[in-house]
């Protein structure tokens, strides 16, 4: 168990972060090179002002027409993404681990809040799961990989919650938590989770075309 812990909390963390950051940079750079080569228009018409204008309307809940059309989805997806990003980054337990390793630290949220956000993320995953099952237009588009991704995202939160609350086998869950977190991080650049990387670009490009060329709104 000690060796396993040392492995998952040591070298594997490095591996996960290297894959995540390296992979993300690779995806973004290779996409940029491809765009330069074959989609010159993306650079020609990209306009930061209009890109940001569009992005802002989409990262603020209810700021776009479609967010207003789907209030539940909007609430859940924003809560989910906030929980998904804020919880791991501002979790005290994570920060102290980083402090121990690299002697850097930042503001940590109260554990109670982290608990709530974790439940929000897990509940959102359940919501997304049910949505994929229940709404015909979503079900039609859903493939197995979408469920796998959902599980990959939910797993670190479930296991984290589990081990934090010290339910049975919490040591094992602790290992599983670290492992699943690393897997999730590592797959971001190479799965649908890469929408995290490409959102600003695809949205920004559409915003640029709409704002800069078409002189119309795109939200």
């Amino acid at each position: 168990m000690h060796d396993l812990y040392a492995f998952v909390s040591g070298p594997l963390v490095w591996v996960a972060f290297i894959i995540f950051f390296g992979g993300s940079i690779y995806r973004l750079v290779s996409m940029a090179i491809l765009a330069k080569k074959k989609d010159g228009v993306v650079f020609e018409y990209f306009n930061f002002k209009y890109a940001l204008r569009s992005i802002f309307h989409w990262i603020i809940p209810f700021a776009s027409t479609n967010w207003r059309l789907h209030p539940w989805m909007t609430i859940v997806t924003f809560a989910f993404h906030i929980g998904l990003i804020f919880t791991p980054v501002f979790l005290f337990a994570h920060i102290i681990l980083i402090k121990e390793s690299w002697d850097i630290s930042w503001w940590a949220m109260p554990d109670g809040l982290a608990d709530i956000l974790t439940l929000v993320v897990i509940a959102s995953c359940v919501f997304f799961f049910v949505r994929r099952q229940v709404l015909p237009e979503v079900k039609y588009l859903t493939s197995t990989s979408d469920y796998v991704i959902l599980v990959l995202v939910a797993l670190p939160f479930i296991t984290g919650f589990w081990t934090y609350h010290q339910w049975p086998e919490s040591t094992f869950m602790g290992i599983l938590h670290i492992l699943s977190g690393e897997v999730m991080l590592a797959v971001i650049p190479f799965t649908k989770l890469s929408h995290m990387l490409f959102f600003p670009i695809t949205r920004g490009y559409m915003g640029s075309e709409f704002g800069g060329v078409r002189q119309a709104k795109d939200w």
Partner: protein
Amino acid sequence: MRKTLGLLFLFSFLAASLVGFSAYCQEDISFVGDSAFTERMRPSVPFLHDDHNEMANIEDCNECHHVWEDGKKLEWDSSEDKECSECHLSQESGDSDMDLIKAYHNMCKECHIGQKAGPVQCSECHIK
């Protein structure tokens, strides 16, 4: 359909597990403590000093109660008369609570991992 059922099962199992168990307690324990810890984010760490040292085969006090000077651990000096926070949270060092916690964690975890014995995960020490 089969895949979906399987996934559904997995989800319900995990959900049930969340609420199905409760924490357990230990008797006759004493805790790692430092007066600097006024607010506790996690439960105190149960620690039976003599049992631990016996089990871990530790004889020298300064194995844990160390004294450092100029970046070197003093072989013949020890600090069992002090609280950890006297050095690890001193005015001069400018340390924060975080650094004190870090000192504790590193002290325990590095040794445990090195010895392949003893608790290392959060939940193993900070028992509810």
